[in-house]
């Protein structure tokens, strides 16, 4: 399944490897939290890029100490109205300082893109055929442009209305 990343539709070069399969030959494996937790020394010492899939009822603090081992963390949306992963994403970014790729997987649809991006996700998986994927990418661009002034701070770089007002006040005082 391809992903939208940096405004482009790209092939997913990561592979989720179920716990019962070996990782040996896989260049970019994504492992479950259980596998990471019970991980043998080989996994822990693994000298290559590693991805982690975090169930959405897990407190990110549970892996806080291991974060720099992961180049990718996948957060799950079992159904798109289950919004727990938004909180996980903000905690990973804002509290635990995770800098790797954060990806939304599961039922992820266009109308979540803006919220996802604001919570610190930088890629989303895209389902469907070529036509669906094209529409999703189009939707991604629309979603990013739809709301220009958010009303609250989050994990993204957009200045919220409160900061813009603050700046305006500062400018008024300065002049």
């Amino acid at each position: 399944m391809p992903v939208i990343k940096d405004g482009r539709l790209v092939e997913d070069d990561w592979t989720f490897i179920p716990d019962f399969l070996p990782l040996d030959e896989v260049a970019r494996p994504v492992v479950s939290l259980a596998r990471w937790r019970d991980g043998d020394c080989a996994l822990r010492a693994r000298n290559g890029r590693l991805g982690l899939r975090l169930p959405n009822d897990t407190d990110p603090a549970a892996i806080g100490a291991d974060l720099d081992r992961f180049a990718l963390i996948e957060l799950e949306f079992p159904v798109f109205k289950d919004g727990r992963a938004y909180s996980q994403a903000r905690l990973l970014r804002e509290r635990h300082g995770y800098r790797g790729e954060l990806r939304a997987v599961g039922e992820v649809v266009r109308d979540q893109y803006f919220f996802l991006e604001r919570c610190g996700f930088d890629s989303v998986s895209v389902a469907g055929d070529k036509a669906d994927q094209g529409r999703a990418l189009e939707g991604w661009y629309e979603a990013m442009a739809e709301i220009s002034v958010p009303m609250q701070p989050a994990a993204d770089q957009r200045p919220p209305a409160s900061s813009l007002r603050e700046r305006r006040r500062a400018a008024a005082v300065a002049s």
Partner: protein
Amino acid sequence: MYRYDEFDSTLVNERVVQFRGQVARRLSGELDEDHFKPLRLMNGLYLQLHAYMLRVAIPYGTLDSLQMRRLARIARVYDRGYGHFTTRQNIQYNWPKLAEVPDLLAELAEVEMHAIQTSGNCIRNVTADHFAGAAADEVEDPRIHAEIIRQWSTLHPEFSFLPRKFKIAVTGAARDRAAIKVHDIGLQLRRDAAGEVGFRVIVGGGQGRTPMIGPTIREFLPKADLLSYLEAILRVYNRLGRRDNLFKARIKILVASVGADIFAAMVEEEWRALRGGSLDLPAEEVARIAAYFAPPPFENLPAQDTGFEAMRFEDRDFARWCRTNLHVHKQPGYAILSISLKPVGGVPGDATAEQMEAVADLAERYGQDEIRVSHEQNLVLPHVRLRDVHAVWQGLVAAGLGAANIGLVSDMISCPGLDYCNLANARSIPVAQRIATRFADLDRQHDIGELKLKISGCINACGHHHVGHIGILGVDKKGREFYQITLGGSAGEDASLGDIVGPAFSYDDVVDAVESLVETYLDLREEGELFLDAYRRVGLAPFKEALYAGH
């Protein structure tokens, strides 16, 4: 009143364009109903049995005449000439066409209104005391903080897919007119020992099938910390609230299951990590918003007005109306004036386009251009000079809005019930109408005094029956409509849930039962004692006796 700056209007206008796109994708079939549903719900659009229903937010219940006229115009152009004011300071339109809803929203945006987050599992329209800015017992205007919350919660990226809907109410007075103890979060402005103003924070109250009076999790929260604290509560809820069972998904279930103390500790822990960050409110920002809610230019008037007194003396109907529909204003020579939307035989909360326009005219001419919507489904003109009260009353009577029954037995809250709602066990509106007709004699109602009667057609409790002095709940008994009666509920600062009085009554018998309860109260009340106080003094026994003794 708050006025949008360019940031607020940009967002609301962009939101209209966004929803226009979503509607177009729905109409073209690109979006199926399953995926359109949460999007339309975040714009207040419900799909009911026969048609769409649009719920428009009236943030903290405040409107000016321009906005009220626009609501009237929308009723006329997009609906069938009326609207329904709800218990959550919203207005609902029952017959909009999907393809026209984007135009309707654009008309609202022109007058700084919207339908954002009036439904769906997000932070809903924030409600406040409908006497805000006018009540004599107020520490500070709660709308300042309700507006701050409105902005922060609008399209919140983390909290738009919560386990369930989330309702916040704010009051600035110890006398609770906003039902803060039966909300997901209730905030009460108060002073601490040092005279500093902050909030008491109540979490996990609610009605529905599991009614709860919310516990206080923090006695005093400094004003600057409001948003970081709310974010902490919402984050704990978003992560830990149940999502496996719709009926157990509200925050009240989480708070009750872990216990208020443990819940409070979880919030405090999250808050310690959040406070001091970008959510801290600079005093300048609070001041900027507070300035919008500065009191209107009041005249220096004597506390009494001779013309007003004379009219009260001469005109018995006017005098009677004054007894229930006027309330003490903080400014001498002014009054707070309630407009009842509960005429005998009417549908509680409904108003026609013409009535909305009449209220807009009166507010503009006599009421500092301000109108409020109360959670008891009435309207309020918060700032009227005593000398103008008679003229306003005449205008109201002419518009069919002269009911002199605020707080009395016919000022009922009733849900739509079986006539409109597919979840109902029983009819509600006809029961309300029959009770109002039985007590149509106004002198009798005035003699009975304050009595809050609330009716729901099923356990979802849209009609607030749990917190009625008399609550009536529609139940289904082998396919027949029955009504269970509770006594002693209250939504005020002394909040309590009603006690079930005994076996339910049939549709035919329920009005007699209510009358018998009222007669029992009249017999046993002490001088000046209200129904609720009398019930609290004597308990269920005499009422039970009156209802079931002969059976």
